[in-house]
């Protein structure tokens, strides 16, 4: 097993790496697309605005290699926060911007989804898991708290691909999945023991 954490200049790489090290996982930071050839798992972190993140991803030549790794080579793939959002067809933050198109859907501001509470949605919130038979959520009871910090959220075109949601004024998409491609709006690397369990489950996927 070797996990590649994608460094496209916008992620909290060291937090993700630290959390994986604490689990005893073999991970490395990939700063160019050729470094993901030998990886068995891919993690796409993300902190930042959607359009900025996509621009950096494209500038680094990541788009096709990531799509190939996920779609052709079937490597387990986890997008975190904006990394999850970029799995969508497009995002509206910073102007309408195409995403990686790995999971059908779009990313819109929480207020356009009808949320009237204080935005950003920051803090620990219950994760309501609908796809409880997915190995990635094994051992995590529904309503466990995870750490969220975001103003935009995924709207999955296919409701079956929304694996979990959280409630913040509106039900918001907290986790998506299609085959071995997953995305979490929350930060597992910052969600203490519950997050460690989810990362452990992810790296155990074959």
């Amino acid at each position, binding site marked *: 097993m070797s996990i590649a954490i994608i460094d496209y200049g*916008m*992620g*909290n*790489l*060291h*937090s993700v790496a*630290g*959390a994986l*090290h*604490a689990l005893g996982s073999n991970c490395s930071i990939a700063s160019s697309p050729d470094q993901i050839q030998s990886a068995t798992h891919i993690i796409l972190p993300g*902190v*930042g*605005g959607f359009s*900025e993140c996509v621009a950096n991803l494209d500038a680094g030549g990541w788009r096709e290699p990531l799509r190939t790794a996920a779609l052709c080579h079937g490597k387990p793939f986890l997008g975190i926060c*904006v990394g999850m959002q970029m799995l969508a067809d497009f995002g509206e*933050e*910073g102007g309408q911007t195409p995403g990686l198109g790995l999971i059908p859907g779009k990313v819109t501001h929480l207020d356009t989804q009808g949320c009237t*509470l*204080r*935005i*950003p*949605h*920051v*803090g*620990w*919130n*219950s994760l309501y898991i609908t796809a409880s038979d997915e190995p990635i959520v094994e*051992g995590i009871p529904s309503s*466990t*708290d995870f*750490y969220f*910090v*975001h*103003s935009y959220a995924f709207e999955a075109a296919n409701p079956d691909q929304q694996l979990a949601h959280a*409630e*913040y004024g509106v039900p918001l998409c907290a986790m998506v999945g299609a085959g071995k491609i997953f995305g979490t709006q929350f*930060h597992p*690397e*910052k*969600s*203490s*023991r*519950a*997050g*460690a*369990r989810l990362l452990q489950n992810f790296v155990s996927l074959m």
Partner: protein
Amino acid sequence: MLKVRIIPTLLWKGFGLVKGVGFDSWRRVGSVIPAIKVYNTRDVDELILVDITATQNNEEPDHHSVRDFAEDCFVPFTVGGGIRHVEQIRRLLRSGADKVSINSANFEGQELVGQAAREFGAQCIVASIDARRMDDGSYRCFSHAGTKDTGHDPASWAKQMEGSGAGEILITSIERDGTMQGYDLQLVESVVRAVNLPVIASGGAGNYEHMRQAIQDAGASAVAAASIFHFTEQTPAEAKIALKAHGIAVRETFPG
């Protein structure tokens, strides 16, 4: 349901963890990394780390230390102190900070909050405001670790920070800081009412009832505290039990 956060604040000066009173009289209370490890083991909701040296000496925020902190911290943390440029923010976020807090630079006519929010997203930009109650009962923002009167009213300044793109407001009462006499509820409430952002109350927590007041009476989304955890037997975990008894939603620790 979103939980109320209880956030220990750690001030560091060189390698030492310090705590003052009224932004002065710093006392060494330990070392940073062991403190972070303890809070991490105790599974706190979040941490705020402020680099006092960078603030006072106008130095670069110490992102090397932040990287070390991130190695041991699997809960979110905000880093503040001496942040003046977008590049510093980029380094801090890359080093593992989840959010940065910006204070003095906002009063120096820079568009830092807006620029940073566009680049990194509003969710990781905390506008920190230190305020003092004046003799006439009004409030005033003070920058540069509480030394410079900016002439701004905290509530309207918070509103302005929201307009610039801040994602959260950290409001600290300078004269309550370190006193453990309770948050300045009037100050916190004025900021909570002014913005539609989450507001973190800071300065003055001495017991769990003070935290309850900041949340239920003043409307804070989170409470930050330092002295209560450094100098008393009270803990974030016990605070949650006390707050839960008042019907406040708090995070339960994951058993794993």
